[in-house]
């Protein structure tokens, strides 16, 4: 009896609670909840969180749709024709009341520091929240100021009262060759919303705003990547990792030491020679820009989607910048012709849960061209350089010809899949990673 009255009193109380709480949001519950059995609701719940999802947003956007995959009757190319600029919405999209748009002047130290702080605390993490990308200020300046960049494409959101920067999205212009066409595109990147504001759903309006500002420059296509499947990837690549400092990688949980494996054999396995092997292997210099441009253009021409670099682009994207991008050329000791080059960018990550280490220093394979030197040897030299410069790991996607050296150079498969997308441009068939020649940062 005592038990029963307790239980019942309890239920009375909670109904009172709910009645007394008018502030409680009363969302529309789908009618399924009224009569459905637990199994059915559980099944619906399961469905709601499992892939493939419905994508009402992307289904309204000019992007390749899931149901079009393999439909060869659809033409390749732009999905929607450009609009007259007068039809582009002239004013910014409205933000929720407490927020306002800002343009982040990445040249300015204070503004760059603000962006750096937002990203280093709130940007992409791994699934287990052990690591978070820590793009350096210099890296951001490099990534956001290529030739012809638009300041107004570096978009921030501030809290009106405190002026605190709470969200960020960017685009930079790029000439991308798609099949035989050269298309001026925006590369959209660095979408980041402060962790505490994720529920405010700023991202959709930010994407719309950056799209609007891109349209205002009479650019109608974009490329971007995501870790999630959206309609519709033009290609899906996998990350591979080459341990340079296996002990640290194991310690911080980037890789694991199997119970049957010894640390000593692991260390031995990943040992690299002290010096690079290829004769004439040296750091790229400004004078190499024309030759490197020639090499890279010829090389990238063979891929279905790849940037179309000119000398200004090469000078910006490939010429070494300390702790941002490293490039090495092979200059023939005999003819002094540059025959090959390799490059990688520096993207450290914060280590979130380790008392011994706070930063993981990672090199990411960028563009590599081998004409005389075997690609494997070239990349092995890149590994040696990276090891010498205290990188912990060398990462590469399986795009371009990378697959040909990954296994042999002791890269191991990663858990990250990177999906590539084009906005307002249709490809009838998804590309194999080896047909893709584009690296986004």
């Amino acid at each position, binding site marked *: 009896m005592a038990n029963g009255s307790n239980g*019942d*009193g*309890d*239920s*009375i*109380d*909670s*109904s*009172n609670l709910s009645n*007394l*709480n008018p502030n*409680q949001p*009363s*969302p529309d*519950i*789908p009618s399924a*909840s009224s009569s459905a059995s*637990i199994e059915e609701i*559980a099944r*619906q719940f399961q469905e709601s*969180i499992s*892939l493939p999802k*419905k*994508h009402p*947003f992307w289904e309204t956007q000019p992007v390749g749709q899931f149901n079009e995959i393999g439909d060869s009757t659809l033409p390749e190319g732009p999905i929607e024709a450009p609009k007259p600029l007068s039809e582009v919405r002239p004013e910014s*999209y*409205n933000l929720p009341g407490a927020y306002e748009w800002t343009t982040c002047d990445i040249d300015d130290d204070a503004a760059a520091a603000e962006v750096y702080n937002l990203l280093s605390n709130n940007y*992409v*993490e*791994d*699934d287990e929240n052990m690591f978070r*990308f820590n793009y350096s200020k210099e890296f951001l300046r490099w990534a956001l100021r290529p030739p012809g960049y638009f300041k107004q494409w570096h978009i921030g959101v501030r809290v009106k009262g405190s002026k605190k920067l709470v969200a960020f999205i960017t685009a930079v212009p790029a000439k991308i060759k798609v099949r035989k066409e050269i298309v001026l595109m925006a590369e959209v*990147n660095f*979408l980041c919303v402060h*962790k*505490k504001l*994720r*529920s405010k*759903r700023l*991202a959709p309006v930010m994407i719309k705003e950056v799209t609007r500002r891109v349209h205002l420059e009479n650019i109608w296509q974009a490329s*971007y*990547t*995501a870790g999630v499947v959206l309609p519709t990837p033009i290609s899906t690549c996998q990350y591979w990792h080459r341990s340079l400092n296996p*002990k640290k*990688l194991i310690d911080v949980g*980037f*890789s694991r030491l*199997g*119970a*049957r494996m*010894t*640390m*000593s054999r692991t*260390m*031995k396995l990943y040992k690299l020679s002290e010096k690079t092997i290829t004769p004439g292997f040296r750091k790229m210099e400004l004078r190499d820009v024309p030759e490197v441009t020639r090499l890279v253009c010829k090389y990238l021409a063979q891929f279905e989607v790849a940037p179309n670099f000119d000398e200004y682009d090469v000078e910006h994207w490939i010429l070494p910048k300390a702790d941002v991008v490293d490039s090495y050329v092979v200059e023939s000791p005999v003819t002094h012709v540059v025959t090959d080059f390799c490059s990688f960018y520096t993207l450290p990550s914060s280590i979130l849960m380790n008392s011994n280490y706070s930063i993981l220093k990672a090199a990411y394979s960028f563009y590599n061209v081998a004409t005389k030197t075997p690609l494997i040897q070239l990349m092995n030299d890149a590994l040696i350089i990276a090891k010498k410069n205290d990188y912990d790991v060398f990462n590469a996607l399986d795009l371009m010809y990378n697959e040909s050296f990954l296994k042999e150079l002791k890269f*191991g*498969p*990663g*858990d990250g899949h990177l999906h590539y997308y084009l906005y307002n441009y249709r490809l009838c068939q998804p590309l194999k990673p080896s047909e893709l020649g584009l690296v*986004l940062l």
Partner: protein
Amino acid sequence: MVGNWQELIQTVVIGLIFSYLVAKLISTVVNFREENLKVVREDDVLAEEESSSAPSADADSLKIETPGVSEGKILEDVSEDDYEDRGKKEEEEDEEDDWEGVESTELDEVFSAASVFIAATVSDRSNKVSNDVQLQLYGLYKIATEGPCTVPQPSAFKMTARAKWNAWHGMGAMPTEEAMEKYVEIVIRLYPDWGSPSASKTSESGNASKTPMGPVFSSFVHEEASDDELKLDVVHVSAREGKAEDLIKHLENGVSVNLRDSDERTALHWAVDRGHLHLVDILISNGADINAKDNEGQTPLHYAALCEREAVAEFLVEHRADVNMKDNDGSTPADLIASSWNFMTCVH
């Protein structure tokens, strides 16, 4: 006669109270469905007696926990100004739904998974969660989902309700995130094996930790070492895991300190490999062969050098490990270290 009357009155009164309570229970369940389902789950948790209402209520709360349902408001604010006509607005609302689950924080996800787990666990009668902890979880849950307690205190006769109210009210103005964190902490403390598998599974399937656009952080896929042929004895395992007591026990039970695994490693190799200096000490004082070679001709000092374990190497050298021993590749331990260690070169 008098007794009969009393009994009759008692029966009638109890009957009336009971039917009132049943009616109230039904109206409660209906109410919850209609407007405020969030409350149900933890009521569920605490009021185990209400098992009859549990399935549907629980399911409802699952439904409502799907991130984003309650967040439509802000979006409408955004979209209202964007579009004039109704048709476009609906489209807009649709597009917001697409971000459901993508944008909620990892903490939201973990908290949500933890509360689902607790609801399921506690409604299982064999659970071992004490009332105090349940009340604490209840309070944190309310803070996390509704914020500080603003409802009036229930009457002192409603003991459970009062206790729950006290638990919620007692949290004061704790921030939502902190409440979620504490909730998750308690759950992990109660069920240490809960944390990783189901939590990571949830975030993986919901893609919660992935941003809707941008790069991806990747780390090694965990592959079990393919070296299945390797046979280890208990002493090797204890040495590898750094379990001193186990190791001593095995040695006392007569296991040879120099027993080899299938790759000819001794327990000392394994202890050095994993950097357990105290086990190295134990093994050496129990007569381990300090210059034992594995099938590649490497001694424990080679291992210490390769694994960059300077303190262990120094300890081995102090205990007269041979610094000039060559492995099958012809390398001495000193050849294997990147930097130079004085104690190794001195002996040279």
